């Protein structure tokens, strides 16, 4: 389909602003823009239809099943959107006087109370804008803590090899050296490897539990204790929090700091890649180091992750969701997610091996290594074939410790019929792989495009439209 620039006609536009009612001021020549903007020129009708056409070429969780592992694509309630669009929230300047933002404070204070309770933590910051931003924040808290105690040799963060890629990247940004420890044969932390890796240079551990193969690590109390004994702190990657909320709390498991992905667990939408919100909750020992807002406090020494107070409207959505669910609903959502994942896994595990565990938490990982050996059909081929059935593919080739991995996270907001249908499609694809696998290499066949040439995209990058010279 055409780009918006290709639909542009000089002289078209929308009538949006009144004539200027004060004398016009011009910039001096040397400060003026050297050539006029080349934005597209379209009527409102054309703009409306352009984006409607783009929307038809997109797929959101509110349109259909989206079992993307580790991303918790649950239904995004409409009421949450409507509350975040209230003028009493959208029209508030971030630097308004305290006495004029009582409502915003109430939102943040209420969300703080609920999230601290759900995580078993004492304090929170809403400044981080996403999960990775939260990880970076949490690690800086750990760094600040050790430094404030004069314990400056602690420069290593221990991370299991199955961890999300953001974990080591965040640790590196926070100035730590990453110590990767291998997973044990059960997919969980190898306690001996962990014991061997800790020492006087251990700043902390980053862990997600349940881990990325969907298993709750039963040694969790030993794990966090080993780190504490060594003088380190424990960081909980909250990407998988949907699996445990209302059932068990990171704070009770020995974690000192946790980030939450409000855009996963608390049903705020992903927006095609953001905005999210990655609040960081911590124990009181880390509270003194929580970030602030320099322009308001002029405390130069405080950490600050972005301007102002975080992605506030996302917090409004998450709070609306938490008020709707309540304590019981939060637990039910968690249990529903775990039930749906186990149900779908049970319907598939006779055909597609599950490398770790008999049951799972909120997500499960299948290995298609055998299928590929037998038929030549890869995890990628199966994933792409799902698109022809209107199902968004699961996360592919992650975690790295499983070969030909497909990671499904159905979430609690899917009905049994949806899971049955998806499982049936997966079984049909298994059959097809054995009978007519060749055609799956070209899947999808009925999508917006055929498979794109990613090598071409990276080798000869075309990253913008080039206007034709006039």
């Amino acid at each position, binding site marked *: 389909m055409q*780009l918006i620039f290709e639909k542009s006609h000089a002289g078209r536009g*929308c009538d949006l*602003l009144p004539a200027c009612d*004060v004398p016009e001021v011009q910039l*001096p020549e040397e*400060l003026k823009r050297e050539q*006029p*903007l080349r934005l597209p*020129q*379209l009527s409102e009708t054309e*703009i409306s239809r352009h984006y409607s056409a*783009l929307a038809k*070429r*997109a797929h*959101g969780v509110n349109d259909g099943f989206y079992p993307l592992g580790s*991303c918790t694509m649950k239904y995004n309630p409409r009421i949450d*959107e409507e509350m975040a669009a209230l003028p*009493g929230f*959208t*029209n508030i*300047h*971030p630097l308004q006087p305290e006495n004029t933002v009582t*409502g915003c404070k109430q939102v943040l204070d209420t969300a703080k109370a609920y999230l601290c309770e759900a995580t078993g933590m004492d304090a929170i910051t809403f400044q981080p804008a*996403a999960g*990775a931003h939260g990880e970076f924040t949490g690690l800086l808290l750990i*760094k600040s803590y050790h430094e404030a105690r004069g314990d400056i040799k602690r420069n290593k963060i221990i991370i299991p090899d199955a961890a999300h890629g953001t974990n*080591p*990247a*965040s640790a590196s940004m926070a*100035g730590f050296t990453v110590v990767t420890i291998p997973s044990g044969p059960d997919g969980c932390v190898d306690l001996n490897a962990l014991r061997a890796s800790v020492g006087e240079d251990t700043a902390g551990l980053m862990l997600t539990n349940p881990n990325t193969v969907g298993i709750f690590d039963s040694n969790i109390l030993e794990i966090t204790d080993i780190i504490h004994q060594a003088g380190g702190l424990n960081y909980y990657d909250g990407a998988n929090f949907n699996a445990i909320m209302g*059932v*068990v709390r990171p704070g009770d498991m020995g974690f000192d700091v946790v980030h939450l992905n409000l855009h996963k667990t608390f049903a705020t939408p992903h*927006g*095609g890649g*953001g*905005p999210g919100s990655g609040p960081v909750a911590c124990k009181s020992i880390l509270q003194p180091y929580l970030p602030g807002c*320099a*322009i308001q406090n002029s405390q130069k020494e405080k950490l600050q992750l972005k*301007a*102002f107070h975080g*992605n506030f409207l996302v917090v409004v959505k998450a709070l609306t969701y938490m*008020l*709707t669910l*309540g304590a019981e*609903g*939060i637990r039910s959502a968690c*249990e529903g997610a775990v*039930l749906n994942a186990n149900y779908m896994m049970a319907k598939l595990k006779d055909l597609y091996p599950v490398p770790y565990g008999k*049951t799972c938490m909120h997500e499960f990982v299948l290995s298609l290594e055998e299928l590929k050996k037998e038929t030549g059909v890869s995890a990628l081929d199966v*994933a792409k074939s799902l698109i022809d059935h209107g199902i968004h593919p699961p996360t592919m080739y992650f975690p790295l410790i499983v070969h030909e991995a497909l990671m499904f996270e159905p979430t609690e907001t899917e009905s*049994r019929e949806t899971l049955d249908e998806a499982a049936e499609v997966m079984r049909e694809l298994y059959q097809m792989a054995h009978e007519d696998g060749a055609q799956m290499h*070209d899947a999808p066949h009925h999508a917006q*495009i*055929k498979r*794109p040439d*990613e090598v*071409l*995209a990276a080798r000869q*990058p075309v990253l*913008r439209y080039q206007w034709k010279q006039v």
Partner: protein
Amino acid sequence: MGQYIPSTKEEQREMLAAIGVDSLAAFYENVPDSVLLKEPLHIPAGKSELEVRQMMETMSQENKVFGTILRGAGAYQHYIPSIVKYITAKEEFVTAYTPYQAEMSQGILQSIFEYQTMICDLTGMDTSNASVYDGASAAAEAIAMCRDRKRTVALVSATTHPDVLATMRTYCYGAGYELRIVPEKDGRTDRDALEQALTADVCCFYVQQPNFYGNFEDCTALGETVHQAGVKYIMGCNPMALAVMKTPAACGADVAVGEGQPLGMPLAYGGPYLGFMAATSAMTRKLPGRIVGETKDADGNRAYVLTLQAREQHIRREKASSNVCSNQALCALTAAVYMGTMGPEGMRQAAGQSMSKAHYFAQKLAAIAGVNVLNQGSWFHEFVTELPVSAQSVLNALEAENILGGLPVKDGILWCVTEVVSKEQLDKAAAIIEEVCASCN
């Protein structure tokens, strides 16, 4: 109450039976009993949609929505065309994940590609990424793009927004490189001091245009000074000002970043906003985060994909250029729809009117006895005044008339005027300020 769970209790029992377990507890066998919660969380019981609506509406009404806003300082009230809100509320855009699966996400990918093109056009730069969290984190990420083993000091002008500066300081603290402030002189970067500061260990210099006080810096001259020392040049730009001012590309910037909020995003108590990042071709592969590129599909048709992913955390892990994963895609879409709707003429009008009205207001204030406008030379839509009375007394008087006055700063008040404020509103605000100033004489 509402849980958004379709399955009935009966269906759940059947599903448990199909799995071959007795109860939900079976799934939590691995959780040590000592930490399993024995009672519900101390969170109130769930509520109906109507009750929740009433609670949230009550909270929103506890805030004061000002009829006139004369405050900016990093967050700017511009007119948002109706269509922007409707397009960006489409569920296909709102509820999609990052477009990993290109065959199912061409609409999202194309919208990002169009956004990247518009940012390139706005800044004059060669390439843009798909966005980061906000202008402050974009500035901090830009520093990370410039450092190398030998050059580990970042220079930042003292005329930078305090939150942007604090964010850059935090990122530098994390990665272990040093941030040094280049002092200001009369509201602009002190170029002599900059020249002195350009030692062999400096990797980059960051300047904000227009700067925190609203002044236009001589960015071309600053760029020349910086490049003579072999140092990278980063400009943090107000995107609205870019509709009329010299682009960072023309000023010689290697990286251009900024806060995209003026491009169609509401004030929203500070977020979500939009960090835009653009670079020269030479710096493209150092950009953090997602980038969309054009390619061909197996049938030879034009297609869009996430590209240059070898920079990113899911491939490179601890060696990645950044940990950015989620960005602000829907805000980038908002900016694209905004710019597409405003068009070149609408953008020029919004920028031009903001500047003209700010200058009109400054003249009105300068005419009041005891009020001095501190800005010299060229400035955009923000300016600082000294007052003969306390800033608080002026702000209180304005607040009583439903006007949010400027931000109190060291030397007085930092004002901002945008195109949404009418001459009549400005006259009224000036009259109130005059009255306060007169009453204290």
